């Protein structure tokens, strides 16, 4: 925007040549993007269009035989879904295609323990708590590793990459086992700490089955904490690596100058380190938010949504709708709801951070 206004007094010839250059660059740029763009269009976009259409219908397993390109399969064509009833007092029974969406949002699906507001709230809470811990712990450890005279720096750096390198599905299954209430390693370690340090932490927690808690977090089952621990364990190294890269690119002279001006280490952290970490951390956090929001493996393998569907997130619910209940239409509608929620998240974040700006913009 600023470039346009700055040159608005230029002569028509200059404007014309600039426009010509823009058009040439546009053509050239899209040529470079074409292979990736076309692949994404075919592999991701076309099935997505199909999915959007499915979301408007009562798509069930028999409808899988329907192929829009083969006319003889027309008898398997699904019907548009209607909602017999009212929304905010309006009769919507004559509007085709909205049935799945209304039933999802009004929590009227034929599955157990389904309540949309709780599902959405838990999904957001799960994402935020994970990303905050990932980024916080990641930055903290990156700072510790960046300590100038640290002994064993290389060894730590090598070891700390392990949780990231182990395939997520493997870590998820291993942790599930460690949370077993009687034989699991977590409770046994708590027991050892209790005996050695004369503490009294409960060591018989039924991590994956306990429904009720006490106090402020009563609405969170213990399995949330189990899944959180697992996901934090495997998620922070990514953030730590991003933060380390950013820390290494901060010129040492900045700190020297701050030293001369008599800044305390606390001031140096808030005025130099954190602001310069921001440009690298913001896109990482943005990506992390999307990944965590749609993080299927951890919830599916560690809690499987239990107990009583309290730790279900949107993707695991959509997966169950499709692969166990075979409700393809509702599952598709579910995915689209997830998409709009994430789109809202990302556009907001993008507005704040301007991560899509190009190099010299």
């Amino acid at each position: 925007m600023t470039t346009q206004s700055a040159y608005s007094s230029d002569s028509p010839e200059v404007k014309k040549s600039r426009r010509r250059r823009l058009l040439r660059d546009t053509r050239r740029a899209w040529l470079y993007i074409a292979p990736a763009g076309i692949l994404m269009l075919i592999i991701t976009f076309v099935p997505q269009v199909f999915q959007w259409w499915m979301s408007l219908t009562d798509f069930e397993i028999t409808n899988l035989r329907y192929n829009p390109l083969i006319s003889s399969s027309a008898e398997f064509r699904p019907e548009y879904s209607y909602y017999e009833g009212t929304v905010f007092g309006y009769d919507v029974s004559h509007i085709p295609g909205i049935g799945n969406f209304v039933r999802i949002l009004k929590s009227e699906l034929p599955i157990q323990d389904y309540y949309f507001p709780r599902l959405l709230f838990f999904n957001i809470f799960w994402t935020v708590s994970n990303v905050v811990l990932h980024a916080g712990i990641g930055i903290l450890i990156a700072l510790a590793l960046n300590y100038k005279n640290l002994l064993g720096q290389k060894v730590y750096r090598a070891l700390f990459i392990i949780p990231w390198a182990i395939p997520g599905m493997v870590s998820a299954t291993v942790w599930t086992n460690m949370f077993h209430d009687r034989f699991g390693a977590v409770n046994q370690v708590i027991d050892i700490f209790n005996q050695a340090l004369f503490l009294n932490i409960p060591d018989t927690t039924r991590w994956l089955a306990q429904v009720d808690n006490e106090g402020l977090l009563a609405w969170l089952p213990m399995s949330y904490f189990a899944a959180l621990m697992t996901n934090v364990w495997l998620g922070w190294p990514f953030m730590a690596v991003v933060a380390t890269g950013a820390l290494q690119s901060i010129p040492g002279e900045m700190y020297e100058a701050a030293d001369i001006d008599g800044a305390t280490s606390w001031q140096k952290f808030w005025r130099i380190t954190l602001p310069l970490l921001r440009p690298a951390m913001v896109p990482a956090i943005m990506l992390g938010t999307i990944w965590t929001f749609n993080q299927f493996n951890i919830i599916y393998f560690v809690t499987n949504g239990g107990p009583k569907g309290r730790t279900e997130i949107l993707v695991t619910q959509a997966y169950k709708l499709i692969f166990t209940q075979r409700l393809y239409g509702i599952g598709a509608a579910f995915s689209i709801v997830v998409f709009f929620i994430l789109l809202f998240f990302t556009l907001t974040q993008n507005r704040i951070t301007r991560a899509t700006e190009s190099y010299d913009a």
Partner: protein
Amino acid sequence: MLRTALLIIVAIIAVLTVYGLVFIKNQKKKRAFLTQLGVQIFLLFITAIVMFPVFWIVTMSLEPAGFSKPLDLKLIPTNVSFDAYRKILVEPWIRFCSNPAKPETCMTFGRLLLNSLLVSLGTSIFAVIIGSSAAYAFSRFKFIGRQTGMLGFIILLMLPAVATVGPLFVLFNSVPIGDETLRKTLLGLAIAYASSVLPFAVWNLKGYFDTIPKELEEAALIDGASPAQSFIRIILPLSLPAMAVTVLFGFMTGWTEFALAWLFLESPQRYTLAMALTSMIGERTIPWNEFAAMSIVMSMPVVFFFFLMQRWIISGLTIGGVKG
């Protein structure tokens, strides 16, 4: 055993703290010593948490055959046995046979590994080649639709793919390859995976390209190089760290994905290691020692690559990094 170790550690920390506080007189040295001690305690604590599940699973993999469930906490195995490793590495996989009656038609570890390598390497190479070309355009040209295009890639990442597997199945099924369809081949899997790695590839490579000074290219252009030449001769060689990270990401996707693979592949001859691992969890009585051994065998190459490329990973991970 563990309790004694814990008490010893607490005692050592106490002694060192007292030593630092009381016996070091020089203020500057005292401060350096205590900071070092604090950071070391913190990092050792993190190391313990990081390594704990790793030790646990190594121990489990060394249990003898007939081992059913980990009953008590052992971090050092008592009777070491390599049964589990022998079973998964040497013996044929009786779960995956074209003809269950004949053991020679069963999959072996070597063939599972070969399939996994083909899919993973195919995914990563494909993604990095077409991803870098798109990233170059986003980083270097000012053009109509740049913001939209860039967001377009990340928006595709946001669309949950759960319900798209059906349409993708139909789509791949309609592409014939020889006397079968793309859906049943490893190539089809690699293409599908590559499209899921691309958004990351484009964003990460664009971020790194942004950090390469434009002057280098301008000099080449003045010397008469075309933009394509300057991209291949100047930008790509300077971007090796970011390319390596992108390859690693693509590799990991292909290496660990199992859901789509189970749905698409039919012949056991094409099954991958990730499928083999998940098939163990699905069984009624999970063979824990074999599962642990398999987990370790599968994690090893990835961990090895991470170690090998460690320096590059730190500098090469620049997802959308904006130059300030």
